[in-house]
């Protein structure tokens, strides 16, 4: 039996645990597991009931369209965000009662902070950022798709496979309790013999390979597929940040793939990279992991900075201030981010000079980031500002992110870092940079680009309330953690005995509920907007008087993006055309367009990788071999496919494009005052411009 099922048996689910040892903690675990099961079953029923299997397969799972792949990334990110936020709320709730012992077992608490961290960084922030790059970059550079559309599918498949493993770990077995960094020797086989660290290893390694391939794809796309005339220094800033993030993905993802596979070799085959005996060196793990970990932070932050650049310029109706300095700052951050990783373990015991060097590098990286903040503020200066939802996020970001950045500069000083190392001060710091920069950036991006993808705006009133809730919820939850950290409360502790912590954990616990409300409001906003989509429709494609190329095409963007590849003569290409007075010109002729054919390649690799990860976790060797064999077979079979493209006839494109142009010419444009009214059909009229 053990050769057939490996380590699997009937006792590995939280249901059996809750049945045998009922307690609040085990019931919470069983509840979470049943949410996964019920959610999956409900999804299957809904898909069958509404007969959506075929469209799902034909239009989404096999699609090589970069926009659809991007949307799937973002949906994945939002689903995982829901889990990550709920886990955060459960943890805050536990700590709010932790003086009395709390309601979770300390092992369950350990699982929660591990999954929360792993999910939020690798399966929320990464899919959201990669999703946006996927969707927006080809539109901004005037391309029809990514350089490698099918590779793009594969990247999504591998990322999804990692997420699948995380979801499965809720129902079958237990996740790691070693934190999202999974430091050995604790996660080695001696101290953690169970399946938890194995789930972590394979989720991270498989999705990490997907992200590496994304980086390759993005870099090749931006370098090689730009429209004629789009020189590097004419690229929109989001594309610039995407380029830097892509290069960073290529260089930063391999280390985490290597470190997690080395950990796997230790655990599975008895190697001695990071063990306590026979020469293993666990600090080498910390080194390699953070060679990935620190650049990763900027891989996530840079594209969010790109969103801020677009939002600040568009909603101030001004050219971005300091384009050159923003580009240089982006590149500087990308380079310097590879020179600071050691600040994650100043306390390792290396020499003072090493600590000083990395401390200084860490302080220096704040400089280009500061340049960016000033550039954005100068962009707003005397602009035609509309306080739309993305702008509210931007203002929240300005204030909160600067606080988070400054606490980072404080932590960059090794002597101070020694004092607050491993306390909640650190937890407060990184939430204070990641949430206002990355999460707010992505939420602002969703509001900003949603109409381009779906053809209607998101409701502004609900959107604004959501933004306020996020900002307030964030402050209530995380500012108290600074205080607690300075009081000496360690991170990752399930309980505490010092009663003076209690008021602060109570505030943080209340704040977590506000964050939960904010998350629900995101869903409410989307649901409400779908319901009233007719009023919010902007089919003409330019609801915000946009400046870059993606706003020059219909909404939702057609499969071929551009009926005719545009010629670029300036930065803010679409804005320039509008200033000249005639942005909508009928092309002299249309050509057939070759687009990538739909293929199940990415989906097959996703299934194979998920099954392989699962089989490896549970030591089911025959299934490991079988699912692994699928991968080279699929890759080789793909090489023999000759017809990878389909032609869209020129007549079809001409028909669609001319219909859109006619609609543009027969519609009244709206000024910025009417932006948030049903009169906004996605055609912008000039309104005097900035003072």
């Amino acid at each position, binding site marked *: 039996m053990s050769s057939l099922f490996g380590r699997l048996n009937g006792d590995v689910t939280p249901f059996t645990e809750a049945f045998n040892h009922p307690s609040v903690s085990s019931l919470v675990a069983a509840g979470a597991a049943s949410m996964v099961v019920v959610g999956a079953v409900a999804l299957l029923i809904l898909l069958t009931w509404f007969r959506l299997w075929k469209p799902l397969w034909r239009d989404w799972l096999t699609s090589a369209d970069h926009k659809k792949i991007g949307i799937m990334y973002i949906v994945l990110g939002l689903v995982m965000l829901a889990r990550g936020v709920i886990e955060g709320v459960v943890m805050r709730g536990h700590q709010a009662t932790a003086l009395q012992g709390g309601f979770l077992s300390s092992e369950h608490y350990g699982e929660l902070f591990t999954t929360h961290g792993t999910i939020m960084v690798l399966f929320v922030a990464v899919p959201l950022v990669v999703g946006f790059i996927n969707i927006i970059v080809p539109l901004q550079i005037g391309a029809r798709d990514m350089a490698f559309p099918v590779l793009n599918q594969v990247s999504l498949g591998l990322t999804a496979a990692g997420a699948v493993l995380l979801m499965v770990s809720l129902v079958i077995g237990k996740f790691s309790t070693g934190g999202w960094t999974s430091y050995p020797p604790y996660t080695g086989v001696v101290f953690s013999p169970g399946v938890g660290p194995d789930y972590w290893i394979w989720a991270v390694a498989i999705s990490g390979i997907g992200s590496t391939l994304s980086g390759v794809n993005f870099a090749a796309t931006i370098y090689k597929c730009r429209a004629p005339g789009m020189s590097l220094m004419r690229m929109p800033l989001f594309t610039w940040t995407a380029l830097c993030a892509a290069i960073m993905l290529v260089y930063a993802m391999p280390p985490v793939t290597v470190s997690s596979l080395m950990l796997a070799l230790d655990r599975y085959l008895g190697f001695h990279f990071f063990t306590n005996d026979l020469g293993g060196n666990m600090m080498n793990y910390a080194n390699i992991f953070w060679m990935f970990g620190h650049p990763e932070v900027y891989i996530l932050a840079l594209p969010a900075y790109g969103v801020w650049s677009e939002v600040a310029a568009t909603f101030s109706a001004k050219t971005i201030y300091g384009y050159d300095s923003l580009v240089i700052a982006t590149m500087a951050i990308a380079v310097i981010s590879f020179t600071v990783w050691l600040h994650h373990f100043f306390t390792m015991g290396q020499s003072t000079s090493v600590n000083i060097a990395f401390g200084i590098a860490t302080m220096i990286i704040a400089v280009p980031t500061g340049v960016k903040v000033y550039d954005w503020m100068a962009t707003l200066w005397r602009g035609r500002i509309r306080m739309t939802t993305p702008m509210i996020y931007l203002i929240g970001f300005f204030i909160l992110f600067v606080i988070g950045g400054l606490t980072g500069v404080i932590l960059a000083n090794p002597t101070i870092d020694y004092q607050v190392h491993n306390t909640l001060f650190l937890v407060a710091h990184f939430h204070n940079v990641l949430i206002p920069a990355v999460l707010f950036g992505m939420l602002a991006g969703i509001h900003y680009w949603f109409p381009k993808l779906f053809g209607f705006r998101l409701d502004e009133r609900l959107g604004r309330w959501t933004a306020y809730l996020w900002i307030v919820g964030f402050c209530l939850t995380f500012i108290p953690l600074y205080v607690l950290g300075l009081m000496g409360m360690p991170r990752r502790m399930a309980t505490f005995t010092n009663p003076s912590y209690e008021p602060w954990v109570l505030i943080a616990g209340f704040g977590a509920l506000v964050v939960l409300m904010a998350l629900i409001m995101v869903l409410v906003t989307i649901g409400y907007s779908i319901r009233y989509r007719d009023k919010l429709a902007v089919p003409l494609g330019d609801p915000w008087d946009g400046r870059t190329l993606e706003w020059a095409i219909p909404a939702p963007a057609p499969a071929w993006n551009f009926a005719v590849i545009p010629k670029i003569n300036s930065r803010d290409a679409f804005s320039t055309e509008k200033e000249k007075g005639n942005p909508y010109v009928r092309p002299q002729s249309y050509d057939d367009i070759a687009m990538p054919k739909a293929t199940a390649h990415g989906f097959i690799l996703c299934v194979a990788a998920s099954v392989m990860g699962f089989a490896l976790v549970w030591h089911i060797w025959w299934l490991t071999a079988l699912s692994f064999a699928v991968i080279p077979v699929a890759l*080789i079979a793909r090489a023999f496919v000759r017809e990878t493209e389909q032609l869209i006839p020129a007549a079809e494109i001409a028909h669609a494009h001319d219909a859109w142009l006619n609609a543009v010419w027969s519609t009244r444009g709206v000024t910025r005052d009417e932006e948030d009214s049903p009169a906004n059909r996605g055609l912008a009229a000039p309104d005097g411009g900035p003072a």
Partner: protein
Amino acid sequence: MNPNPYPKLHPGLNLGPAHGVAHEGSEAVLFGFWIFLMSDLIIFGILFATYAASTGPMAIAGGPRPTDLFDLVSVSIQTAFLLASSLTCGMAILAMKYGENVSRVKLWLVVTALLGAGFLTFELRDFASMMAHQGTPMRSAWLSSLYALVGLHGLHITMGLLWILTMLALIQVQRLSNKVKTRLLMFSLYWHFLDVIWIGIFSVVFLAGLV
């Protein structure tokens, strides 16, 4: 004077004497493959760094040392096989570019595969003899990092052999179509890259270990 009709052609990248369209098609693909190789290089770089940090007495942990295990004659034979295979791989590309000669391309690829297999045979022989002398990866951190670095290179060679077989089948079916040519160029990049890595391994692992 005959002006170059394709002034944008880079040396080494064009797929034939006058092959402008195919060249444009292959440009993004090869560029992307270069980037991929750079990320692969990072993987090797980390394993090199780990190896370099694992050669001290602590990491050897009382187990066998380089002088107990390395066989420089065998390693030299491997090196000769691999360098020769890079030459034959280059010959295959030249046959593709100038001759468009399908059977010659195939012949050079087969020779490349045989040389690669020869390399692998000797490498596995060395692994077996090391293991027979207590040199298993479970013995010490030094041996763990040795097997990870050299073994990963060997895995790459194995994948390269699989790739050659695939290319032979592909040429059989599709002749030297533009796609096949682009794939051959990618393969040759990959194969030469493995040579460069091997020279690093030869110097850092074997020569330095026997000094």
